[in-house]
Every structure is written in structure tokens, then in C-alpha cells.
């Protein structure tokens, strides 16, 4: 296996379901000179680039109609999200130290404990949008079930109370940002959290379960200035409680939500 020197442009095309992490590992393989095969194409120096690909949403772009139009998704994913990926790759080309990270790691590293590096905005927005597409599904909305519902009822009183809090957070967020249902790692409870611009809960080591993009570009084409209608459409028809459940199940491997069951001798 030779060293790869793929052009960034091939992989930045939409609709290719490359996994970001898989790609990173391939790129950081360093093989002895004997095993390097002659390259078929470019004779240019094989500068190994650390870069990331554009993940496509887990549904077709028209699947969320009429609550989120194909036209909006084409712009939001194809232009904004794609733009963040391209911007990030361009920035990383010039960086000597930000190399070989998974996207999660890159977000935390560039956040730099509250003093973000220039790459943070692009890295975090790539991560945020990946997370956001996966937080929605066609035929979403409704209510969670079983364990997740129990946890919500425990931490918010009732599902209705949680829903009100989430919607209120979305409507009272000034400017651009995101609203999250988050599992706080240290407090071991669910909370609704608002963040500005590109910030997300993983920089504080918390575990988000669902997110809602309230940057104006996320809803303007469909709802114009009516953020309330957008938020309601999200809660009632788009949010994927299946994904949220999968995420909290995964989180329970790292956060102990129940009371420890210590046997008495």
C-alpha cells in the first residue's frame, strides 16, 4: 500500500459518505520506503494533508418536506456546511500542529479552553452540522420512550416542561447559535443549553443528545423571520428521538445515571 495523495477536491464533493475518522487513520500511516509503490498520477511531492470530508445527512434532501424544504437543505448543507468543510481544510493546509485529530478532538483542541484558535469556528461548525442533520429524521417529532423519557421526566418534571424550556431557549437566544438537550457529565443530569455562534457542549466535556440550529440561515428560506414556527416544526415533526436514545445509551457507558447498586454484605 502506497501513501495516498488524494486531491482534497475529490473528497469534498457532497453525497460521498466518507467517514471522517476512517480517513484520518489512513492518512497517518507511514510506511517504509521499500513498500512505496510508484504513483500513477501526480508527480508532485506527496504532501500528506490532514483534512476532513463533508458528511451527508442520513436522508435525502427532500425527505424533511414540508417542514424543512429541499431548497433550504441544498443551501444549508451544500453551501454553508460545505463551506465550513472547505474553509477548515484550507486553514489546516497551513497548520503544522493541527494534524491527525478526529473531528471531536480537533474541536476541543481548537477551542483552546475558551480562547479559540482561528480554526475553531470552521471545525466546530462542521461538527455542529454533522450532529444537527443526524438529530433530525423524516417523520420525527413525538415523544421519546422508556429510559430517555424517564430521564427527561426526572430532570425536567415532565416532557411538556422540557419542551417548553427548549422552545423558550430557542426563542430567547439573541443572535446566532444553537440550542441543545445535553447530558451534563459532572452533574449527571439532562439540561437545555444555549450556545452562541459555533460553540457546542463537547468543549465542556458534556454529551449532547439533540441540537437545533437557530442561525438565521437554518430557517430563513422557509420561515423568514418566524423562528417560533420553525422551532415548533422541529419539535413536532423533525427531531429524532431514536437518535437521541441511541446517544444516551452510548453516554451511559461513560456517565452513571442511576444510583450505584452496592451490595451489602
Amino acid at each position, binding site marked *: 500500500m502506497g501513501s495516498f495523495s488524494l486531491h482534497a477536491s475529490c473528497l469534498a464533493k457532497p453525497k460521498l459518505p466518507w467517514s471522517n475518522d476512517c480517513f484520518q487513520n489512513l492518512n497517518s500511516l507511514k510506511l517504509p520506503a521499500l513498500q512505496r509503490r510508484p504513483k500513477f498520477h501526480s508527480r508532485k511531492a506527496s504532501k500528506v494533508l490532514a483534512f476532513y470530508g463533508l458528511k451527508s445527512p442520513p436522508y435525502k434532501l427532500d425527505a424533511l418536506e414540508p417542514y424543512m424544504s429541499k431548497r433550504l437543505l441544498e443551501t444549508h448543507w451544500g453551501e454553508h456546511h460545505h463551506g465550513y468543510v472547505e474553509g477548515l481544510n484550507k486553514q489546516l493546509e497551513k497548520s503544522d500542529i493541527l494534524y491527525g485529530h478526529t473531528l471531536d478532538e480537533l474541536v476541543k483542541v481548537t477551542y483552546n479552553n475558551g480562547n479559540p484558535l482561528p480554526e475553531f469556528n470552521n471545525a466546530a461548525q462542521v461538527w455542529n452540522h454533522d450532529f444537527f442533520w443526524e438529530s433530525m429524521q423524516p417523520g420525527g417529532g413525538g415523544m421519546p420512550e422508556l429510559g430517555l423519557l424517564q430521564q427527561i421526566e426526572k430532570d425536567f418534571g415532565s416532557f411538556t416542561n422540557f419542551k417548553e424550556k427548549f422552545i423558550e431557549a430557542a426563542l430567547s437566544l439573541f*443572535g446566532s447559535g444553537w440550542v441543545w438537550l445535553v447530558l451534563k457529565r459532572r452533574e449527571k443530569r439532562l439540561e437545555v443549553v444555549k450556545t452562541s455562534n459555533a460553540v457546542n457542549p463537547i468543549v465542556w466535556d458534556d454529551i449532547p443528545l439533540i441540537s437545533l440550529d437557530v442561525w438565521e440561515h437554518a430557517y*430563513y428560506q422557509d420561515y423568514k423571520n418566524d423562528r417560533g414556527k420553525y422551532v415548533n416544526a422541529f419539535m413536532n415533526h423533525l427531531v429524532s428521538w431514536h437518535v437521541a436514545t441511541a446517544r444516551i445509551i452510548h453516554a451511559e457507558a461513560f456517565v452513571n445515571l442511576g444510583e450505584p447498586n452496592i451490595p451489602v454484605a
Partner: protein
Amino acid sequence: MALRTIASRKTLAALGSGLRAQARLATAAAGAYSRGLVTFSLPDLPYDYGALEPAISAEIMQLHHQKHHQTYVTNYNKAVEQLVDAMAKGDAPAVAKLQSAIKFNGGGHINHSLFWQNLTPIHEGGGEPPKGLLGWAIDTDFGSLEALVQKMNAEGAALQGSGWVWLGLDKDFKKLVVETTANQDPLVTKGANLVPLIGIDVWEHAYYLQYKNVKPDYLKNIWKVINWKYASELYEKECP
């Protein structure tokens, strides 16, 4: 009880007039005066919604004015009313909690009131370069009008999230400055001595329906409808 009402009326009159001075508008923006409370209303545009085409579409102008600006005005009035109640009751936590709503909505009203005056149709002089004292000051402080435009466009394009890019006047040093503010923060939050001459809204709602995510195109085109005459008036008021 009566004394408290008078006190709050005075404070609010001062607040109202202070804000009006900052907005620099002798408009019908300040409206009713009832219950010791100055409330604000949406100022009219000095031109039709379609008058700034093709730089800014009529659809955007209408939404921006009738929906966004109106919301800021409404919510600002509501917040101020709640503030007066909280102050009257001596409810300090409520007073503190309302500050962000007042800053956001009040700032939105101030900024947009100036913004409508900063724009004018091409046939009424939109885009015509500034002459006189302001033109001279721009050449002195930035080298040329093109350099200023380039700087403001670069700062506007680089601004992450929502905010404004400003051409301001530093009253104390009599120098022109280019600044950005986040969300609806007025220019004065960057310095009490700063007077806004031109503000460019770079919130997505200001350009999205027409330019989508291509903010640089919006910034390039808006200069065609910038009202330099008004900016010159503001400048000459401070630096005669």
C-alpha cells in the same frame, strides 16, 4: 408613590432623550408618553421598499423593516415597561435580568433606525462618494474611499455570527474608525466616545433571501446605495 413616579419619569425621559441623541434622529420614532414611560414606534422608511433594488431586494427591505425592526421596537417597549415595574417594586434580580433584553432590543431599534437613514436610492444620491469634510477625513484616515470600503467589507465578511460593521467617528481624537459589534450591540458599546456614521447590518436576515450565504456579494453591492450625504451631515455636526 407620587414622588417615585416623578423620579421614574425623569430617569426615563433622560434615558429616552439620551437614546434619541445616540440614534440622532429627529423622527417620529419616540412616540407616546404615558404612565411616565417613553415608548418607541417603528420609524417610516424615507423611500419605498423597492427603491434600493437591485442592491437590496424589496422583499428583504419589507421583512427587515416590518418584521425584524418592528419586533425589536415591540420587545424593547415591553422590556422597558417591565423594567419600570421592577424598579418601582425594588425587584433588583428582575432589573438585572432585563438588561440583556433591553440591550438587545434597544440596540436593535437604535441600529436599524440609523441603518434606514444610511441607505438611499441611487437616483437620490445613493453610492455617490462623500465630498467635503468627510471625504477629506476618509482620505486622511484610510488613504482613499476604496481602501475604507475594502476594510469594512473585509471586517464584515470575517465577522462570525450576527453583528454590524461600522464607520465611526472617535469624538475625542477626531479620527474615523472601522469597528464591528456583535449581535445588536450599538457602536457606543465599543467606546463611549464613538459616534456611528454608517452601520452595515451583517445579520443573515439582512441579505439571505437575495444573496444566500454569499455575504461578500451583499457587502460589495450595498455601497451602491449608501447615503454619504447623511453620513457627512452627522460628521459635520461633530466636527464642524
